[in-house]
């Protein structure tokens, strides 16, 4: 029994450690981008929708059918709002990766100590903290699995070639592109292995280079390449600084947690010392003919390379896959290095334990705490939808963490609640982050809130620790009378629109929308501070554009704001037009919309212009 345990411990202990370290993270609830992915389910009406849902490029031109689209579609379809099975999938995938790493290390070093130690060091690395806790970053976990699986199959095929082995390696390699774009670096990893362990076999990597090259070309065709902002690429010397920063973060956590009584520079010093020691030991091992530390460092450099140009988007979870390389390098150095180097390498492990491991564990705790807040919010809204169907919901007591941690992503849309807003006087407690998004559309205007609450069309809830408390009556009694006298800053036609805010040119309301004729007027309040745009959003059925594009001209307060064109490509239009200067301080602003062509309903009398969703001021 003891002997058997001794043989199998590298495959048993690291998974157990994984489950212990991330016991908090693996119990986290849905948050942030998770809701956008869960909302995909509403677009899945028949099996014919599936290819489009899985493979259409989305945010930043990403195509990650397995790790994002299929993962959330299947997760929500099978289990609804229960994240536990999805977390189980994350844990199983990572356990698979730990087993693959153990097998790889055993093959590279012949040592069970290295085979067990490397996965354990990977488990405590700060890079895994977020992917093990936040479901939207499952792409990192799945990509790591595919890279390791492909490499293992490639090595098997390179050592004892056969058609079946080649086919299985290529098949897994191709599937890996569905996890994360970083999978493109696999040929570099395979070449690195060849150069270090089997130089004569490098030609076997050529087909993989060809496939990655083709993927690169295809991805460039669909990828969004912003010139500025966090996702702008900076191909310059800053990449070196970013590399050092990621290297240090993977070794020593990248920050000092609040409760620690250590100055911030200590982790930096620890990272520098650990990094220099590791490079020195790898060099010494190389001179003795041992290649594993160099292989680990090569893995780190190759897998971190794709994110180095993202200078302004430094994310610690990007080191999830590269950290596997550091773990292999350290474990390799321990078993292959000379005895005199052992204390130094043990010091590197100590730095990881002191600085990096707590950061990894804290990431799990933090995500769990954030998820609990969102669960309280979501379950409260679910109950509100049952108790007050059709009513607008106003929320107070929301903190910044809950707002940006998920409310902004619209979890209520999963419940069919489209009118959930922050109460006007409650928004001040939420920190604005313009780079994350415009808070404007999520905040109810005073007049909307007053009309809704005082006429019984809205309910107000305060977010508390464990539940949402209905405070509608108290809120209503505190509403100042002048809130009823103003105009809204945004008219949302999906909800109840007060007739008195509409001027001429509108047809009677339909469900969730309203048609205008050739020209229509809507009255808004003056734009608020920072609201520099006029959002005009809605939809036109295809039949209205068949005769050619529809030009939309918009003026506000008698001054031209701008125009837009609706074609077959933007039937769901969303124009952000510049707000004319000098409107501030006005009691009301008449916004006039005019279209170049109308569509006459067959058998009807209406000359239809546009069908609206929203008209109002916006920050961006």
């Amino acid at each position, binding site marked *: 029994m003891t002997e058997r345990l001794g043989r199998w411990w590298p495959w048993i202990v690291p998974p157990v450690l994984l489950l212990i370290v991330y016991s908090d993270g693996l119990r986290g609830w849905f948050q942030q981008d998770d809701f956008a992915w869960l909302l995909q389910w509403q677009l899945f009406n028949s099996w014919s929708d599936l290819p489009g849902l899985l493979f259409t490029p989305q945010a930043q031109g990403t195509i990650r059918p397995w790790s994002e689209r299929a993962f959330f579609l299947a997760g929500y379809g099978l289990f609804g709002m*229960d994240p536990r*099975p999805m977390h*189980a999938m994350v844990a199983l995938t990572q356990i698979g990766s730990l087993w693959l790493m153990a097998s790889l290390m055993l093959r590279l070093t012949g040592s069970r100590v290295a085979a067990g130690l490397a996965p354990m060091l990977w488990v405590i690395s700060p890079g895994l903290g977020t992917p093990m806790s936040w479901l939207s970053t499952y792409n990192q976990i799945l990509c790591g699995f595919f890279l390791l699986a492909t490499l293992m199959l490639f090595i098997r095929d390179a050592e004892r070639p056969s058609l079946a082995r080649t086919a299985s390696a290529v098949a897994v390699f191709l599937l890996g592109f569905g996890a994360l774009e970083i999978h493109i670096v696999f040929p570099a990893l395979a070449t690195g292995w060849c150069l270090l362990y089997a130089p004569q076999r490098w030609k076997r990597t050529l087909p993989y280079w060809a496939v990655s090259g083709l993927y690169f070309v295809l991805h460039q065709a669909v990828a969004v390449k912003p010139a500025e902002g966090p996702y702008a690429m900076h191909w310059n010397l800053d990449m070196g600084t970013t590399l050092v920063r990621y290297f240090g973060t993977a070794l020593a956590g990248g920050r000092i947690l609040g409760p620690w009584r250590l100055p911030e520079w200590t982790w930096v010093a620890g990272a520098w010392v650990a990094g220099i020691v590791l490079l020195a030991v790898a060099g010494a091992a190389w001179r003795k003919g041992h290649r594993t530390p160099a292989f680990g460092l090569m893995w780190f450099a190759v897998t971190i390379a794709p994110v180095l140009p993202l200078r302004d988007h430094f994310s610690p979870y990007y080191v999830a896959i590269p950290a596997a390389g550091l773990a292999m390098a350290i474990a390799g150095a321990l078993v292959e290095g000379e005895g005199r180097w052992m204390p130094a390498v043990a010091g590197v492990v100590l730095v990881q334990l002191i600085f990096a491991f707590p950061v990894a564990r804290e990431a799990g705790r933090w995500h769990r705490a954030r998820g609990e807040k969102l669960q309280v919010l979501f379950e*409260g809204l*679910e109950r509100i939808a049952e108790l007050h169907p059709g009513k607008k919901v106003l929320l107070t007591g929301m903190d910044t963490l809950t707002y940006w941690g998920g409310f902004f992503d619209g979890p209520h849309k999963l419940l069919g609640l489209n009118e959930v807003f922050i109460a006007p006087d409650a928004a001040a407690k939420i920190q604005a982050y313009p780079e994350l998004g415009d808070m404007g559309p999520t905040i109810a205007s005073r007049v909307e809130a007053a009309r809704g609450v005082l*006429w019984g069309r809205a309910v107000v809830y305060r977010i508390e620790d464990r*539940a*949402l*408390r209905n405070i509608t009556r108290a809120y209503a009694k505190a509403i100042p009378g002048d809130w009823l006298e103003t105009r809204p800053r945004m008219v949302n036609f999906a909800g109840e629109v007060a007739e008195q805010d509409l001027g001429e040119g509108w047809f009677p309301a339909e469900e969730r929308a309203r048609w205008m004729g050739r020209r229509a007027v809507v009255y808004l309040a003056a734009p608020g501070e920072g609201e520099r745009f006029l959002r005009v959003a809605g939809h036109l059925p295809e039949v209205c554009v068949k005769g050619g594009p529809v030009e939309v001209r918009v003026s506000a307060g008698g001054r031209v704001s701008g125009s837009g064109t609706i074609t077959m490509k933007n039937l769901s239009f969303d124009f952000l037009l510049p707000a004319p200067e000098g409107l501030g301080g006005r009691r009301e602003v008449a916004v006039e919309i005019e279209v170049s062509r109308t569509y006459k309903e067959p058998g009807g009398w209406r000359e239809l212009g546009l069908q609206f969703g929203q008209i109002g001021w916006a920050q961006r």
Partner: protein
Amino acid sequence: VRRLKFIYLLALAPLAGCKKYRRPNPSATIEEPAELATMVSMGEPRDESQILSGFGQVESSAWRWTERKFSVSLGTPLAGRVKGARLELKCAVADVIAAQLLPLTVKAAVNGRALEAQRLTVAGQQTVLFPVPTEALGEDAVVVEFELDKGARQGEDAREFGLIAVSIGFIEP
């Protein structure tokens, strides 16, 4: 084979908690004590306690016959105390008794304060609106009474029929 079985078991493990109908958690919100609705729907069981007199059984979960006189209790909208309101009666004059009823005068009173009477001249669905002054809305709850100037009879049925009522409540002026 044993290894394969193990892999299948692992793959199927998440299915153990397969999706079930999710009932909202009743303790997810803390509600205010119940108050009277400002709008009552004839088919809504929650509003039943506000239907006072002069109505028949609910039909098709949506409407009720009224008698010549009928009444409901309503909560008053908070804004009504500032801006007044309109009393909305969504109803229909049934074709089968339209000849007996039309033209029809509908009187309404809020807490005994008479509102301007309205006259119906056509059969079918309609919305009857009565302007309500702010003074009539000073209380948290009011009794709203309606009276038709005539009723109708159908065949052997001894009952006197009035309108088909769908909902009654206060809306913005």
